[in-house]
């Protein structure tokens, strides 16, 4: 954003102030994430930079907390990671199937009461999590599903579907329905048309909705706190307990892994978004 030569001095100053403010805000947004990286390699048990770390002394850094995370005795992280992945994968599959099918119906111009139904389908995203947590807990307790994986998966499907519905409806809004009509006129049945024509075209939207659902489930702690028993502990639950009781550097090692995971998901989501825009012919 180079300024034109004729810019008056006080606007020039204002412009630099503006850029400084922006830089400060970006710093505020991103810097906290980067504090975790170096501290997770701390050789000592403190959560601040030791003198050795400030001097970049190699002895001050170690993989101690990563080893503790993986091999530590009585370590909950292994079980938590296993549970988290199992729950998130099943919740994602459930959310994607239910959400995509619903989005197909919602995008049809024949759909009656569209606004009302959309409001119901999106509501788990808008209602504060604590309220969802209480309501879902009441249901699961009655259905005998509290403290089971099934219960948590169902809960996460509830929370994840709104994201799939939103992303897939957005993808379908630019969808050219004449291609499905063309397929039908060439003798394809609806299921075949969906699998061969519609799905490949809306796939980026479906996958990015699935990523949202995955992250929602993988990161969800409020509802799980109500539902989980000791056997169903997840990574967020362990982090929550750890952060409440004592902040150990092992948590930072886990946090670092989670940041790497979220970076991967971010990159995938961005690539998909661009591909989707290209497929739908939106050029920016």
């Amino acid at each position, binding site marked *: *954003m180079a300024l034109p030569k004729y810019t008056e001095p006080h606007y020039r100053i204002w412009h630099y102030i*503006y850029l400084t403010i922006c830089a400060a*805000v*970006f710093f*505020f*947004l*991103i810097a906290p*994430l980067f*504090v*975790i990286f170096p501290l997770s390699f701390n050789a000592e048990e403190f*959560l601040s930079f030791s003198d050795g770390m400030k001097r970049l002394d190699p002895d001050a850094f170690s993989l101690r907390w990563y080893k503790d995370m993986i091999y530590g005795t009585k370590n909950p992280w292994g079980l938590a990671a296993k549970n988290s992945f199992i729950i998130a994968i099943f919740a994602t599959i459930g959310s994607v199937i*239910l*959400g995509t*099918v*619903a989005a*197909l*119906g*919602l995008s*049809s111009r*024949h*759909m*009656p009461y569209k606004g009302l*139904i*959309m*409001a*119901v*389908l*999106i509501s788990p995203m*808008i*209602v*504060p*999590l*604590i*309220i969802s947590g*209480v*309501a*879902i*807990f*009441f*249901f699961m307790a009655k259905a005998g599903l509290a403290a089971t994986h099934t219960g948590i998966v*169902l*809960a996460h499907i*509830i929370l994840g*579907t709104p994201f799939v519905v939103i*992303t897939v*409806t*957005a993808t379908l809004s630019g969808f050219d329905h004449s291609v499905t009509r063309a397929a039908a006129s060439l003798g394809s049945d609806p299921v075949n048309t969906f699998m061969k024509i519609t799905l490949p075209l809306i796939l980026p939207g479906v996958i990015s909705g699935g990523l949202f659902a995955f992250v929602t489930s993988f*990161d969800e*702690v409020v509802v799980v*706190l109500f539902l989980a028993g000791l056997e169903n502990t997840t990574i967020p639950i362990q*982090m*929550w307990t750890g*952060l409440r009781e004592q*902040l150990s550097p092992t948590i930072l090692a886990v*946090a670092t892994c*989670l940041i790497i995971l*979220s970076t991967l998901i*971010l990159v995938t*989501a*961005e690539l998909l978004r661009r591909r989707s825009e290209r497929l739908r012919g939106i050029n920016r």
Partner: protein
Amino acid sequence: MSSETKQILTTDGIPLEVSLKKAEKKNKIKAFLLVAPLLFFLIITYVFPIGDMLFRSVDDKMVTQMLPKTFKAMENWDGQDLPDEEVFAAFHEDFIKLVEDKREGKLSTQLNYTKNGFKSIIKKLRRASKKFEEGNYKEQIMAVHKRWADVEYWRAIQRRAPEFTGQKYLKGMDMYVNEEGKIVSVEEDRRIHRVLWLRTLEIAFFVTVFCFLMAYPIAHLLATLPMKYSNLLMICVLLPFWTSLLVRTASWMILLQQQGIVNDFFVGIGLVADDNRPEMMYNKTGSYVAMTQILLPFMVLPLYSVMKTISPSLMRAGKSLGGTPFVAFWKVYFPLTIPGIGAGCLLVFILAIGYYITPALVGGASGTLISNQIAFHMKSTLDWSFASAMGLMLLSGVLVIYWLYNKIVGIDNIKLG
């Protein structure tokens, strides 16, 4: 179509209008069948349970069912003086049955909600009742403890007779029905819930304001920079957005602790003395800082998507017509961004008002919100009906905002990422 026009028939001989309507109906059913699985799933697992919360929050059958004979006998009691022997005898009968079923503890918990002091006298009554003789229960019960001879406690029991009650909602607003049946506020120093509601609104409001003030410039920069730079900077917004909430809260706990990096920095530049490091966590400051950073992306993204659509030539036109850059910005650019501001502010406010995890971890006692109170009653006091009532009060507030959001922005326009 006028009635004289000859009806158009399809090849099957059915009027076209009828045939079209049939097809239309078929399409409607098809579309609905696609939505139905998710809709019914959500109605059963989510909408009904919220209705169940509503039921629980006003349900007061427990005591009604525990003391059926007492309440029957109390129907003839005027509530002025101590009740008659008839009521005492009925109460004794109900109570003996409860002791047999080992449910008198539940009764004492329930009655204690209505009036403090029931716990101990019910325990005493249980012990004494084993040696009770037949007849004249009034004397015997009153002899157990002087509170049993206090008409206030009998009125408290009578207040639990109805099957439904709104008292949990009143309690959520620090009000109660007093002995005369009027709705009054509790004493000033015990109004904990009002403080929490106000604090929740205050924190949600200021977090929204801070987010707006910080998001506006960077959204503008992202929207006006050339693509290759803005894509890079967009990562700074999206990476926190995709990162676990707990990870971000953990990093603020590290930064804000007393021996933390922010305090080190303040000491380093001589802003504060080393032995007088300010407490920045476990209070409101902690909640403000962490929540602002965590919710900032939700403000940037809607603002950005609106700003992206504003053509830069509008600003140039404003300037060429004689406006200074400030005037051009204020009169041309800013009004065009208002839909984005509305969307971002409402989204952040809705999210902030129901925040739980971050305030619980960095908020301490003075930075917790209404959600924390709900969780406390769900997990610690187990007063689920009160938790439900508070939850629904919060929910009704959120629904009002949601309705506004739908009016202003439309739910269909929620954008993600």
